[in-house]
C-alpha cells in the first residue's frame, strides 16, 4: 500500500516539473551561433565572392569532402569555378572554417540537412553561396593581400628611384 502511494506521489510530482521535451520540428530549437551545421560561402562587404579558391579548406578536411577548382578573373582575382562539399561525408568538424584565410567558408547553426537521396547531399557552389558576410562583417581579404588586382588603390614604387 505504501508502495502504491509512493509511486503516485513520484508520478504526481512530475506533472508539475518543468518539461524537457522540445516539440521539434514544430518548435525550432534556438542553437548558439557557433553551432557547427550547414556550411556556407559568404561574400565581401562589396558583395563579391570571398572565396579565393586557395584550397586550404580542402587540404585540412579530415574526410576530404571538399573540392575546389581555381579560376581567375581577367583582373587577377582568384575565385572558385567549382566549390563542392559532400555533406554525406562531412563531419562538421569546422576545420575548414578555421583554415580559411578569407573568412569565406563558415559553418552555420542550420543542422537540418537530412535528405532522401545521397546525391542531394553533394552541394555545389550555388547551393553554398549566401548573400551576406556571415560572422565577420567588414573583412575583405583583397584589402590585406599583396596581390595586384584591378581597382586596388596601390602606389607602385619607382624602381628607377635610386634614393636610399
Amino acid at each position: 500500500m505504501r508502495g502504491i502511494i509512493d509511486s503516485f506521489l513520484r508520478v504526481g510530482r512530475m506533472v508539475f516539473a518543468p518539461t524537457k521535451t522540445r516539440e521539434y520540428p514544430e518548435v525550432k530549437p534556438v542553437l548558439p551561433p557557433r553551432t557547427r551545421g550547414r556550411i556556407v560561402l559568404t561574400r565581401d562587404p562589396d558583395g563579391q565572392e570571398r572565396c579565393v579558391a586557395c584550397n586550404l579548406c580542402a587540404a585540412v578536411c579530415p574526410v576530404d569532402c571538399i573540392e575546389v577548382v581555381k579560376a581567375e578573373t581577367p583582373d587577377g582575382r582568384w575565385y572558385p569555378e567549382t566549390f563542392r562539399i559532400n555533406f554525406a561525408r562531412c563531419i562538421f568538424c569546422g576545420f575548414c572554417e578555421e583554415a580559411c584565410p578569407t573568412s569565406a567558408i563558415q559553418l552555420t547553426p542550420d543542422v537540418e540537412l537530412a535528405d532522401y537521396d545521397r546525391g542531394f547531399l553533394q552541394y555545389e557552389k550555388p547551393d553554398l553561396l549566401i548573400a551576406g558576410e556571415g560572422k565577420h562583417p567588414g573583412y575583405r581579404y583583397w584589402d590585406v593581400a599583396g596581390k595586384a588586382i584591378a581597382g586596388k588603390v596601390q602606389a607602385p614604387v619607382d624602381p628607377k628611384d635610386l634614393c636610399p
Partner: protein
Amino acid sequence: MKITVNGRDLTVEPGHDLLTTCLSHGIEVPHFCWHGDLGSVGACRLCAVKVFDDPDDTTGRLEMACTTPVRDGQRVEVMAPEAERFRARIIEWLMVNHPHDCAVCEEGGACHLQDMVVASGHRHRRVSVAKRVHRNVDHGPFLTQEMNRCIGCYRCLRFYRDHAGGRDFEVIGAHDRVWFGRTEPGALDSPFAGNLAEVCPTGVFDDRWWSRHYARPWDMAATPAICTHCAVGCNITLFEHGGTLRKVQNRTHGAVNGSFLCDRGRFGPMAAEAERPLFPSRKGGEIPWVEAVADARALVAQGAVGIGSPRASLEANFALRRLVGEDRFFAGVSDDEAALVRRMAEILRAGPGRIASVRDIGRADAALVLGEDLTGTAPRAALALRQAARGAEKRLAAEKGVPEWMDAAVRVAGEGRRSPIALVTPRPDALDEVATWPLRRPPAEVAAFGRAVAAALRGEPAEPQAREVAAALAAANAPLLVAGAGLGLAGPAEAMAEIARALGPKAMVALFPPEAGSLGLALLGGAGIDHAARALEAEPRPVIVLDAALPDRAPADTVERLMAAATTVMVLDWLNGPLSARADLMLPVSAPVEAAGTWINHEGRAQRSFAGRPSDLVPAWRLLAPLCGGTETTLDEMLAALAHDCPDLAAVTQAAPGAAAGPVARLPARASGRTARDLAGRLPDGQPRQDADSALVWSMEGAHGLDAPPALRTDAGHHSASGAWAGTDGVGGPVTGGDPGVLLLHPGTGAAGQPLADRTGTEGLAVLPLHDPFAASAADRASPPLAERAPRPRLLMHPGDAAHLGLAEGALVLLDGVPAPAPLALDASVPPGHVALTGARGHGLFVTVEAAP
C-alpha cells in the same frame, strides 16, 4: 679533410663551401639565394651558421655557410641559438615586404620561402609599415610575374643572364625597390625561360599554363617521365589532376638534365591537351572499336608493310616490327635519314671517343660543333655547352685562389676568359656569343672543315683556322665533338668520327639524332620509306603507319608514292596529323605522356617513361600485340618479348624496375577532395585507376620520396623544386641510389663501318633546315603554349639567288611545284645556292624554287 657539424664528424672533400658540404651530407641548412647550379653569392644571409676554427675555439662566430670554404678541423653548429636567432631575424626582414597572399599564389604548398619561414619559426609580424608595391609586366605565354612577392635573392637573374645567356632580363632599382624581369612586355627570348618558375624560390615567376589550369601541388599526381621532344631525353615529372596535365617539372638526372629543362620540354607535353582523335575512323567516318580492330586484323592477314616512327617508343616500334616481320618493317623516315641514324649508332659504338652525356658536355674544356644548331635541335645540350664555355674562366679564377662555387667572384677573377669553342654552322647561331671561333660554312663544306681539323691533328697541312681549332682540341683534357642530323647530311658526323680517331680516347663525342625515338628505331633496323615505297610499287600491300612523324621526316613525294602504292593505309596516331585524315583506317593511340615506354636518347641511354595522364586510349604496342597472336598485356611482358627477340637490346629491361617493385604512390599523402564526389561508398567513378605497366599507383598508397626506386621517384621528400638537392648523392651528383636508365652503346664494341656519302649537285637549290627551339615538329606545335610562343615558319634565301630567280622579299613561291609554307624573306646570312626553310628536313635535298602564279 675532417670537419664537425652539429657534433657529427664528417670526412669531406676540400674545395667546397660549407653550405654545399652540409647539404651533400644530408644536414639541412636554411638557404635562399644559393642554388646548386648557380653557386653562392651571399645575397640573402639566411644560411648563417656558427663556425669554430678548431676544438680550442670556444667563441666562434657567425658566418654565411654559402660563402665560407670548408677548412680542416672546422666545427660548425647549425642550430646554435645565436645562429637560429640571426636566421629568424633575416626571415622577418624578408617578410617585411612579402605580401600576405599565399592563398592566391600558385607556389603555395611547394614554396621554398614558405618552408624557410616555417623552419625559422617566424609567425607574427611586428612591423606595421606598408608593404612596397611593384608593377608587373606581361612575360609571355610561359610565365606569370607577381613582383610583390620578390625577396631579392637574384636567382632569376643569375639563371637567366649568367647561366642561360639571356639578355632581355634586367634588375633595376636599389634598396628594397629592386625589380627583376623584362622591362618591356613580351615573351622572354631565351628558350630556357621556363626554368625561372622553378628557380624562383617564391611565387614571382610561375608557370603560366599551370596557373591557368591550376591545382594545388599537394593535389596533383606526379609521374616520372622522359621528355620526347628531342633526342636528349631529359627526365621530367608530369603533374596531373582530374585527368588533365597541369604542369611539367624538372626531375633531376645527374648525367642528363641536372636541374634545368628547355621550354620545349617543359611545355611540349601539353600537346596531350590539344584536340585529339578519340575514336577510330574509316575514311574520316567514326567506326566502333570492334570494327576497327577487325579491319586491322584483316590488313595484317593480307601481309601488311609496317612503317615505324622516330616519335614512337621502342616498344611500339618493336610491336609493329614483330607484327609485320623484319622484312616488311621500314623506318618512317627518308632512306638517307635512316642510314644516317644507323651510322651514328655505328660511329658511337666504334669509338674510340667516349660518348658524352649532357653533364660531360658541360664539363668539356674545348669543343667543336659541326653543323649542328644545338639550341634548335637539342636545347638542353646547348645550355650545357654554355657552361662548358665558362671552364677557362673558372680555371683562371682558381689559379688566383677564387674557388669555383663563388660565382660572382669567379666572373670577375676569370676576366671573361672562355674555353675554346668552335662553332661551324651555315648561319649565325645562338651559341655564337660563347664561341671562340664562330665559323660560317655552307652545309656541304662543314664536313670539309672537320676533315681539315682531323688532318691538322694528324700533322698534315690544313687551313689556318682548322689548325687553330685542332691545336685547341689537342691541348684540351676533355675535348668535345658535337655533330648531328640537323643539316640532314652525314658529312658532319663522319668528319666528327675522323677527328675523334685523330684525338684518341680522350675525345668525347655527342651525336644528336633528329627525334626522341630515332636511335631506338635505328637499333631495331629497317630501311627508310624510299625502300618501302619501292617494295610496295613492286608488290602492292596494305601499309600500317605508326605515328604522325612521316610527313615531317620524309620528302613529300616519297610519302605520296607510298600512299599511292599501298592498297590500304592504316595509321596509328595520337594527333590529328595530315596522314590521319587521308588514312583508310585510323586508330587513335595514347600520347607519349599517357603510356609507359622506353626511349633511347642520343648517348644510347635507355630510359623508361610512365603514364602521367590517364587516357581511355591504349598505347600502340598494346593495340598491335594481339593482332599477331601476342599475349602481352603489360609493359613488362612486352619488354620480355623484346629482350627475347632482340638480344642486343635486352638491357632495356633494366632501365627501370617492373610492376612488381611497387607500389609507389603518385599522389602525395596530403591529397584532398577524394570523397567530394563520392556518395558515401558509392563511387561514381569506380575504383582508383589501375596502371598495369608500372609499379606506380594512382593513389597515395605506397612508397613516397626517396623510398621509391630512383627511376620511379618524383620528389626528394621536400615540398619545393628548390629542395631537389636532397635527392642526389651530393649537390650536383647522381640521383641517390644511382642515375636511372641503362647505357646500350659502348664505345670500342663495334666495327668502324663504311662512311656514308652525301648526295651532291642536282637541279635547283639545296635545302637548309631551320630549327626552332620552341617547335621542332608537329608534336611540339600541337602544344597550346608552344604554339603561342613559336615563331611563324620562315623561308629564307640569299638576295643574290632571289635576284637571279627574279623573286622579291615577301614573294609567294613554289618549292618543287608545291606552295611554300611562308612568304620569302631575303637574308644575306643564307649561303648562296641554298633555301632555308623552317621544319624542312635536309636529307641532301634539292628543290626548284619559282614564283607562285
